[in-house]
Structures are given as structure tokens and as C-alpha cells.
């Protein structure tokens, strides 16, 4: 494939995934600027290697890379004794298909950040405020039916994300 199509694909992925990936990183490194730096670094490396042309599941690949970058950052920092390595688990890059406790928060923030604006607003209102569908409908001046549809959409997106992470694959016992 020539450079132009790579650049186009790259730009599209960058715009689509930048904010969600930063939200993911933010939940691990707990610093906005640092999260952005790590994601920027990752994209620079991916651009140089044209890595995105080769991967089959870009989303899964990107999430794993960001996670690795965050863990790597903590590892190097901890050697220099700048940031204590408390609470950052250092396993994580295995191929298992289970969702780990420490992955839930980053993944959920990535997920919410990637939702279409309206779906996201409904989803966050419901999850964070515990409002009923009716209360959300009044708050957002939409119908209860729309709230229902949006919540269903959010849940379906969640399933798609889990599937893309190979988390729904059941590994058979041989």
C-alpha cells in the first residue's frame, strides 16, 4: 500500500481513537498531560513503523499498546524513584481472555469516551446519577423511548467492545 493511503488511514484512526485512548491511559497514570504524552508517543511510533497497516484488530492492538506504554512508564519511573510503583500491577500482557479487575476502570472510560455524544450523555446520566429513564427523559427533553433505545445502544456497543477484545471467546478445555 502506498504512503498516501497509510496517511489517510492513520489520520482517521488518530482522530477517532485519540480521546478514548487518553481516557484509558488517564485511568492508569492519573495525569492528563502524561496520558496525552504517552498516547502521542505511541502514535509517533506507530506512524514510523506503519504498524496500523498490518494489524487485524486495530482497536485491540491500540488498547494493548497504550496499556503497555503506561506500565512501561511506571516501570522506568520507579527505577528512578520518582513515582512509587504502588498499586500498578505489573503482569497484564498475557493473552488470557479474562477481564482483570484493574482493567475494568480504564476499559470502561475508554468505552464511554468512544460512545456517540447523545448515547454517552444518556449513559453517563443513568450510571452516575442513578436517575430513572423518566428523570433522564425530562432532564434531556427527549422521550422515554429514546432513552431506552440509547441505553440499549450503549450496552450493545459494550458487547462489541468486549468481543473485539476477545473477552467473549470461551477457551475450550482440551
Amino acid at each position, binding site marked *: 500500500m502506498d504512503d498516501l493511503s497509510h496517511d489517510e488511514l492513520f489520520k482517521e484512526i488518530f482522530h477517532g481513537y485519540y*480521546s478514548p485512548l487518553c481516557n484509558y491511559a488517564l485511568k492508569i497514570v492519573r495525569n492528563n498531560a502524561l496520558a496525552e504524552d504517552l498516547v502521542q508517543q505511541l502514535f509517533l511510533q506507530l506512524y514510523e513503523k506503519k504498524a496500523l497497516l498490518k494489524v487485524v484488530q486495530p482497536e485491540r492492538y491500540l488498547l494493548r499498546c497504550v496499556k503497555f506504554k503506561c506500565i512501561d512508564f511506571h516501570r522506568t519511573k520507579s527505577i528512578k524513584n520518582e513515582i512509587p510503583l504502588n498499586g500498578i500491577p505489573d503482569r497484564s500482557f498475557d493473552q488470557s481472555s479474562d477481564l482483570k479487575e484493574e482493567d475494568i476502570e480504564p476499559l470502561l472510560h475508554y468505552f*464511554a469516551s468512544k460512545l456517540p455524544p447523545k448515547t454517552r450523555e444518556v449513559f453517563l446520566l443513568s450510571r452516575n446519577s442513578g436517575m430513572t429513564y423518566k428523570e433522564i427523559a425530562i432532564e434531556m427533553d427527549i422521550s422515554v423511548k429514546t432513552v431506552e433505545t440509547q441505553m440499549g445502544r450503549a450496552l450493545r456497543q459494550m458487547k462489541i467492545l468486549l468481543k473485539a477484545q476477545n473477552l467473549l471467546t470461551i477457551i475450550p478445555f482440551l
Partner: protein
Amino acid sequence: MEDIYPILAKHFLKDATIEEEALVAEFQRANPKEYQLLYTLWHSKNIKIHEFDPQNAWKRFVSNRSNRSAKVIPLFGNLRRTAAIAAVLIIGAFSLWYLAKVLQGPERYIVENKGNMTLEQKLDDGSVVWLNKGSSISYPKNFDGTTREIKLKGEAFFEVIEDVQHPFVVTADHSTITVLGTAFNVNSDKQHTEVTVMSGKVQVASMSKDTQIVLLPNQSTLATKEGLISRNTIDQNYLSWKTGQFEFRDTPINNVVAKLNTFYRDSLIMDPGKEHDCFLTAKFEQAPLHEVVDIIKITCGLSIKKYADHYKIE
């Protein structure tokens, strides 16, 4: 096929109809792993999204790229001095906020069952509370103290996840109930608090007197202003409000009706002007109300009239 996801969302919010619950159950059986993962993600709280601007980021990316060094000029380092100044301000603000918070006491959830059905509420520690209609519980947003404290008004059945380090403590009108992990029912009003144990061990302490008692399965105690009264026999139907299972043995009809009403949403009304000399022996397991009414009618020879939303015993 019907789209399961909106239904699943309603199910997670405990807002699904019985028909929808059946669809969810079927889905859960077919996709146990998906259900479990969605459940976990769906029930995480405090989602705060930060808007990172991809347009600006792209400009920065292009300028970094043209440097050809594959090195990001860090935002993080440049911000440190500003951050130090900001930190002083933030710490000040945070102290004030924290002080206000401490004065307010911990944040609490209040769950009130205003509906007509039993309400099932799962707590953060995995314990489950079934609230009878008109009852309420309140508990802190996080069980982060040495005990798991819950306040109860009315009636509830508790299934407590065992955690020896953090005893589960229910405070009701007349007693404090302390357990490690067990299942028990508490029925409380202004006059008395009744505790009945299904499994495990439960410690009940009186609020007014310095007395306490340890209850074992199928034991019960009544706490009043005067202290604790232990009972050797328990009411067979102490959990009927939740299970819909009734067992009556020569029970006066007035008591039968009062018990039935705890499950059948106050659908039976006795004519207060009349005395009924009838004792019922019967067993019901979530029987439809009209069947229950028929049996009372036949056994006691009473005339029972049907109205739009209730039966009247005359």
C-alpha cells in the same frame, strides 16, 4: 428476534417486566460469560470522561513528526512549575472541601421501596437485601469502616456475604443485629423489632436494655422498649412476604388474611363489622389469588365479593 440489549439495560436497572426478565434469563443461559462481563462493566460507578481535543493533538503530532526524532515534546514536564503553584491552591481548596465533608458525615445511599413488589437490592460487598413494600434501608456509599453498617425501617430479608473482618450490622428501631455471614429476616416498627434466622448465627442486642442474645437457625426474638423476648417457636410464615409460600395450621381467618396480604399486596379486605369463627389449615405456594380465595370461600363458607383490585370478605 427481539433486540436484547435495551431489555438487558432495563434488567440491570431492575426495571424490566416479567416477560422481559424471561428473555434475559434465556439470554443469560445462552451467554453466561457475556452477561457476567456486561454486568460487571455496567455496575461500575463514577465514570468521568475528560475531553481530549484530537484537533490540537493532531497539530502537535504533525509538529512532533516533522522533528523526525520520534520524541514527544512533553506537556507533562513543562507543566510542573505551574502544577506546583496549582497544587498549593488545590490543596487549600481540598482541605476546605474535606472539612465540609467530614462535618457532613459520610455519604449514604437510601433505598426506599415505594412500590407494591418486593425490592431486591445488591450491596457493594455482594450481600443482598430484599425490601418489603413500604420499607427502606440506608447505608454508606462505601463500606470502608471496620463494620458494614445498615439502617432499616420496616421489614427486610438479608443474605449477608461472609466477611469475618467486617461484621455486618443492622440497626432497627429496637435492636442492633450483628452478623458475619448469614441469612435472616428483620421486621421492625415503632412497637417492636422481630428477628428470625434462616441460616448462620445472628447476634441481637437491645437498644434500651443492656442485653443481647445469639440466635441460631429457626430461632426468633422480639425486641421492644422493655428489652428482648426470645421465642422457641417461629412463625412458619415469617418469610411469606418474599416467597409467597404459606402454611396455615388451625390459624384464625383474621390472621390468615393479614398474612396473605403481606404477599398479595393488600388485596383482601375483611368486613370489620363481622366476626368470623373460622380456622384454616392449608398450604399455598405462590398460588394465584383467586385460587386462595376459592379455598377460603369453600372451607369457611364465607361469601367473598370480587372488586376491580381487591376481594371483600363479608
